[in-house]
């Protein structure tokens, strides 16, 4: 009884900020619930409608592509940076700070900054590339799907890589030096030491970084909304962007809620798969 009392505040927090909103979302998803006006019970009609909603599946597939691309960029570069700044050395603190600095910028502000930098008429990138002779004339980065896609990826990597660097760095630092020294004495090269000592031992923090990165990217919205407005030709609309449009542009809150529930389910499955793939061997497998 007393124990229940002690956890009551935590339970209350979970209830207020997780369980109740989740329950509300599921409840809403079973209604035709306009932003204004009367709601109406429709059962699973919203979920049925979703099967034929090619826009949502297109958005989901774009989100998947983006997640793969940006995750490789973030974790790859994050690992390289972590290896570079892991051991104390001259100016290490400076580099750590420099790489981490963009993380503290909000996504919206970073996107606005990028929107300006990539503006073809008054920005930086297009005129710069033209003046350097890389392109013959000014190229409108945001008007071409490929360029726009990679431009946003670069922005996100620039902004978020410091965060993953810190997670991976803490993992690297917790590896006892003896292991690496022993391997070195046995004649293992740098690459072998990385492959057979570092990689397996950094597994846990890597799993954490991967799950954070994948779930964060699956929920991407701000950058595509602010920099590209989902363009060119609606080719960069993410799943959350689609849900936002359904809910607040088309005023169909109920349908938006149904899409959110499905997205939540997809995220849960993805996280479970990742945890399974990356769990420690000694936990049995």
């Amino acid at each position: 009884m007393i124990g229940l009392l002690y956890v009551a505040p935590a339970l209350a927090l979970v209830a207020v900020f997780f369980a109740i909103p989740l329950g509300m979302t599921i409840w809403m998803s079973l209604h035709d619930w306009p932003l204004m006006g009367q709601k109406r019970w429709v059962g699973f009609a919203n979920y049925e409608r979703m099967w034929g909603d090619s826009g949502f599946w297109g958005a989901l597939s774009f989100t998947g592509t983006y997640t793969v691309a940006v995750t490789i960029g973030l974790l790859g570069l994050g690992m390289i940076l972590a290896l570079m700044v892991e051991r104390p050395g001259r100016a290490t603190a400076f580099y750590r700070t420099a790489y981490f600095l963009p993380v503290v910028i909000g996504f919206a502000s970073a996107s606005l900054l990028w929107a300006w930098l990539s503006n073809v008429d008054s920005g930086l990138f297009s005129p710069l590339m033209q003046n350097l002779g890389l392109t013959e004339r000014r190229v409108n980065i945001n008007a071409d799907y490929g360029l726009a896609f990679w431009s946003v990826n670069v922005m996100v990597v620039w902004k978020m890589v410091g965060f993953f660097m810190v997670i991976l760095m803490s993992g690297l630092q917790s590896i006892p030096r003896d292991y690496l020294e022993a391997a070195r004495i046995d004649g293992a090269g740098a690459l072998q030491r990385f492959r057979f000592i570092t990689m397996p031992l950094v597994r846990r923090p890597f799993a954490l970084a991967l799950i954070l990165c994948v779930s964060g990217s699956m929920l991407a919205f701000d950058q595509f909304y602010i920099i590209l407005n989902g363009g060119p030709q609606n080719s960069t609309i993410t799943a959350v962007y689609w849900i936002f449009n359904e809910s607040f542009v088309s005023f169909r809150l109920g349908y938006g809620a149904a899409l959110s529930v499905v997205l939540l389910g997809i995220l849960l499955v993805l996280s479970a798969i990742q945890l399974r793939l990356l769990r420690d061997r000694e936990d049995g497998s």
Partner: protein
Amino acid sequence: MSHNRLIGGLLLATVALPAPVMAETFSLWVRADGSNFMPQIVEAFNAQSEHSAELQIVPTAELVQKYAIASAGGSAPDALSLDLIYTPAFGAAGQLRDLTEFAQDLDYFDSLSPAHLSVGTVEDRIYGLPFSADSSVLIWNKDLYREAGLDPDVAPTTWAEIREHAEAIDALGEETYGFYFSGACGGCNIFTFMPMVWASGGELFSSDGSEARFDSPQMREGVEFYRAMVEDGLVPAGSQTDGGINFFAAFANGNIGITPSGAFAIGALNTQYPDLDYGVSYLPGKDGAWSSFAGGDNFVVSAATDDDKMPAIEAFIEFAYSLEGQRLLAAGGALPVRSDIAEEALEGLDPRYILAADAMTNGRTPFSPVFNDLINSANGPWITTLNRAFYGTADEVGETLAQGEAEMQSIIDDAN
């Protein structure tokens, strides 16, 4: 003796005084676009009325969502100045109070902006009253006209003339362009591009809004007119991805010859860019004639508003419709909504406002309860289709428009 008279006088005064009016305070929202005139009107009203209004300014893009959330939570404002194109959707959702009787009792009811009233009326009941107006017009840079050897006081009156002038100005130099429009902004193009098609005889919807008429010969010609200017480099490359951020700023920079814009630009240019010499004219059709989009705000009252507050709200509306109210509106960069005193209200202001006010009287507002979905959404069929057509090739225009029309129609059908 004198004592008695005093008492008698006091008694008389008590009897003669009308029953005291309960002073009421009502809450009022306005979108950020109205922040140039609404605070002044509210301040003047509060200073001279026993009632008072409490003003809150809401970011333009968030007004609908904020209102809906406040309304669901029982804390909707008593009244708001609402972008007029949303009045049908709000009215149809049962959010608004019927103002028909009050409106029809106004002496000057017949001179209130017809475009505002047409979208403010749902099934013969009036839910929205004209509050502020903004019409679309064509503006041109007189300095660049002089440099290019064109007559700075003569505006283009056909599409061919726009094209001709734009070419002359574009030839001035690398960083100078003939024409500008925000090619990824739905709201901007319904406001400025559509009137040029209207003036040429085209339509976007059937009169009851149930059918999309996107793929018409006039629309094809209008799209081709813009598309050819883009192809020939008369328009800066940034227009393709401009979702409205540069709608005003591009022309204000001073390197654009001609741009379709709105009456709001007159006030903004005068205060922020006093050195820019520009002219204001009508948005022409292909071979002459002209049209305009009648935009602005309707004044609406929430359905849940207390009856006790109505006298205060009505007093505020009447004050806004007085000459003083209309003058404050005009001084803040919006157009008056009462045509009978519009000229008086604009007296002493920039004469270019007169033309914009005239454009307003013949302005049109398309009616659709799904306007947001179709037109304003950055991902809706209107702007997605136009963007593809404006920046594509000539032989694709027809097919693109036909596809856009089908998409529009399916959204309209879905909503019914």
